Every structure is written in C-alpha cells, then in structure tokens.
C-alpha cells in the first residue's frame, strides 16, 4: 500500500465570479492530525467538499495515495478510505443511533444486491458481523444506551458523536471533520479531544476544520490557514499562533487576560 498521503496541488474552486478556493496546495501525511483554520468564508468547507467529491474543483489535482481522485463521486472516494462529517449535522434523523452507525458499514458489507431478494447463510453471517461492529462503536463512543433512540430526539452534542461514530464505521484511513466542536461546551470539547486522539491511535489520519482554538492547539500536529481562499500560512500550532498575518486575519490580538 502506498503512503496514506493526501496531496492537494493548486486546487481552485469558483462560484460564479467568486473564487472560493484559490490555487491551494497542501499535504496531509499519514498519521497526522491536520488542521485547516481561517476566517468565516475563507473556503475551508469548500476545500473539504472538493476533496470528498461533493464539488469538483475547476483546476488543480487532488491525489490520495498517489491516485488522482478529483472528479470522482463521493461514494467512490469513500471506497478509497476517505470519510467526512458535516458542518451542519446530516444524520438520518428518523432512524435510530444504531441504524445510523450501521449505515457506515455499508461498503464493508460483503452482501450483493441479490441478497436483498434472497438471503444466504453467508449474508446472514455478514449481517451479524456488521451489527457486532456497530456494538463496538456504540461502546467506543459511549452511546450504548441510545442504540434504539431516533437521532432527531438527541441533543446536539450526542448527534455530533453519532456522526463521528458513523464515519468511523466505514473504517476510514482518512477522517475529515468539519467543525466537530461547534455547539459543544467546554466539557464536551474536552471529551472530543480524547476521542480524536484515540481515533488517531487506531492509525487513522485526521483532517479537521475548527474555530475552537483551544482544541486546535491541543490536538493538531500541523495547520494550514486560509483567507479569501488562499493559504496565508502553514506550520505547527505554535508557529501559527505567533504568525502576525494569522493574528490579524483570524485570531485577533490577545488583549484578554487568560488564566
């Protein structure tokens, strides 16, 4: 297997006259927790959409493990081990937590279409195994008691967790998170930090967007900063924190007395 590297070269995405992403290049290496930050409307989500096949960038290339994935459909990209969560939660809201997580097992299931019409012992076994896997994920994310609860009646924080569990069910190599801490309180954010670390422990590379700087500083290994679709800085969190361009465009001056 080639290196689990994601390389963006000169990716450009336009909406009408607006260039949302402007000749962006970046490289995410295997095992990293990689952060993308930047002001609102800088183009972060758009970059993720270009990686995951929701948009096709007009120019540039998106290479994953040496393969060009630009122009592939989302499900083809998932099949190559890249999974994402959304900035606004997109769960199957009427379905239970367990069913939501089970959806992530789709591409790992060995069943063919004909098994939907006529089951075989093999398909029954496969079904069982996948539900077992869902059980494991419920446990990992501490969601066991909600297994049968429809996700729409869960509070926001738990929905976020379900979404992440669903993404992990795919057994991804690269997990992409769009503002996973949005709407979480400090305690929940702390839990999230732990979760992200344990995900990395499983050998999964993580790429995330986040505005919660505390979290970003704590978890990421490397950062890219976007403004107006362009990269204005990249480096380790420490470097970025001190970068005057980033402070001006994004962080704001530290005029507050922090503890």
């Amino acid at each position, binding site marked *: 297997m080639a290196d689990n590297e994601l390389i963006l070269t000169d990716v450009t995405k336009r909406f009408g006259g607006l260039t949302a992403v402007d000749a962006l290049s970046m490289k995410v290496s295997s095992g990293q927790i990689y952060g993308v930050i930047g002001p609102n409307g800088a183009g972060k989500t758009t970059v993720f959409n270009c990686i*995951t*096949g*929701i948009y096709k960038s007009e120019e540039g290339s998106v290479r994953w493990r040496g393969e060009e994935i630009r122009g592939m*459909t*989302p*499900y083809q990209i*998932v*099949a190559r081990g890249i*999974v*994402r969560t*959304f900035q606004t939660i*997109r*769960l*199957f*809201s*009427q*379905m*239970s937590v*367990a*069913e939501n997580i*089970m*959806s*992530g097992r*789709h*591409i790992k*299931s060995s*069943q063919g*279409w004909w*098994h*939907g*019409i*006529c*089951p075989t012992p093999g*398909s029954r076994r*496969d*079904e*069982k195994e996948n*539900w077992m896997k*869902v*059980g494991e994920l*419920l446990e990992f994310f501490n969601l*066991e*008691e909600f*297994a*049968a*609860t*429809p996700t729409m009646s869960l509070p926001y924080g738990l929905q976020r967790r379900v979404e992440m569990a*669903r*993404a992990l*069910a*795919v057994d991804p190599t690269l997990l992409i998170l769009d503002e996973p801490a949005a709407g979480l309180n400090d305690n929940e954010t702390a839990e999230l930090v732990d979760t992200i670390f344990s995900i990395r422990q499983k050998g999964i590379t993580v790429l995330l967007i986040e505005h919660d700087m505390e979290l970003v500083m704590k978890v990421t290994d490397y950062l890219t900063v976007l403004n107006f679709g362009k990269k204005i800085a990249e480096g380790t969190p420490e470097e970025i924190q001190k970068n005057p361009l980033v402070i001006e465009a994004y962080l704001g001056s530290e005029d507050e007395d922090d503890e």
Partner: protein
Amino acid sequence: MKKLSLVSLLVFLVVMAILPHLLDTRWQTVAVTFLVFSVVALSQDIVLGKAGMFNMGQAMFFGMGAYVTAILNSHFGWPIVATVPVAIVAPVLLGIVLAAPIVHLRGDYLLVVTIGFNIVFVQVLINNLGGVTGGPNGIFGIDPLRLFGFELSSQVAIYYYAFAVLLLTLAIMINLDKSKVGRALHYLREDPLAAESIGINTRLYKIFAFGLGAGIAGLAGSVFATQYSAVSPEAFEFIQSVLFFSIVLVGGSSIPGVLIGVFVMFVLPEIFREFSTWRFFVFGFAMILTMILRPRGIWPATFGKIPKFLIKEPKNGG
C-alpha cells in the same frame, strides 16, 4: 409493536388462507384483485416508501407484465406459466432502462417524469403498436393457468395462485429490510448526500429499487391478466398509478400498512358500491380525515429494527 406485527401477520395469513371458501364468486373476484393490488402496492412501496422516490407510474410496470402474458399467450400461443418469467424480466429491464437517466431528478420532477412514462405507455397500447396490443379494446380470451396438467380456472384456484405470489412478495419485503440493499434504500431516502458520503452509490440503488419494484409489479400484472383473462389499456392508466401511490401513503409504508391501504382504497369502495353517486364524495373526505388523524399513514413504518443485543438499559450513575 413488534409483537403486534407478528400476531397480526399470522392472523392475516390464516384468514387469507381460508378466505375464498367463505366468499361468493363476486367477492372472490374482489379478493383476488385485492391480492394482486397488494403485490403491486408493495412493489410501489419499495420505490416510494423505502427509497423515497415519488413514482407515479407504477401502473406501467403492472400493465407491462399483464400485456406480456396476454401477448405471448394469445399471439404466440405460449402457455401462461411460460410467460411468467418474461412478465417479470421485461418490466425489470424496462424499469432499469427508464430509471437510469431519471433517478437524479428530485421529488416532484421525478413524479412528473413517471407520470409521463405512464401516459406514453398507455398511448402505445391504445395505438396498437406493432399490432399486438389490441388497441383500445385490449386483448380478450387469455388462457387459464395450467399447472401439472390441471387447469386452474376457478376463482378459488386463481386466488391461491395470487396468494402464493403475495407470500413470495412478502418474503422479499421482509428480507429486504434485513439486508444491506434494503437499508441503503432507507438511507438514501432520508438524506442522499449523507448516504453518498458514507459510500453508498445512490444512483445504483435507486435503479435497483425501480428494477425490483418493476419486476414484482410485472409478476402481479401477469396474475391480473390470468385472473380476468383480459387486459385493456384503461386498467393501467396513470390514474391507477395514483391509486397505488395513495395506497402506500394512506396505509403507511409498512407491510401491514400497505395491506390495510389496499383494503381501504380498493375493497371499501367495492363494499359501498350501492351508494354509487355519493361514494367517492364521501371517500374523498375519508382520505382527508385519515391523513389528518394519521399523518404517517394508518400503520406507519417504524425504525429501530436493530438486533436485540444492541439494546441496553440506560446506565445508572457513572
């Protein structure tokens, strides 16, 4: 709920198994049609209820199955049994070919396109394309079903034939819910983009739903042609598709729901035939009232069908 479903399914099966012996021939005819319509409605449920595609053209696949059987039998002298596989496969192929370019259409646009297909289909029948459809009159005098040397022409015999087809369909429906493809349909109905983003090829599964639905409807059509020993275009008009569409929604897109839907939307009007001029007026009100009282249908589909071992009591403390 789960227990209730099981018990009612059992009661339903027992009642249906002895039913024809309790009815006179007219009601036997209604009962057979009930079975056939149930199969079509279930097939519609695959497309509309499970995959969430607004298909208002299911009568076309139903009609295609019926016409395949009628044409092969009356023009080419095939025995009815031999026509059945073709009556399934032809609609499946048509379903796939037609669905492929249209499944990307959203809700109401798909609805119009499927209505369009249905209208084109009926016009093909009426214009007697290829000289085999019998034009506006349709085809009469189709042979009865012959199996192992027996001629199954009585309504009771056809009843059991149709009943067997319904059981087969139910088996498929139940299995579908417990399989990868069945779940994929639910996911893509709820949120196609999220479904794509966890690796589901939504296009493929939508086409699958159309194909499977078409095949089942085609089989039902074949039974229908055998029952009436006649086919004619108006039985497959788009208005008939509207009926199947409403059945699924009134019933509520669960198996018992669809069966109740067929009963309410087809058998009840038969029962109230006496009140001919008022019946549809009242019936319309009943439809409105049903939806107001049971917006998700009389017996809605439920989710949360997950294996028992996953359901844990809430932890205390911790």
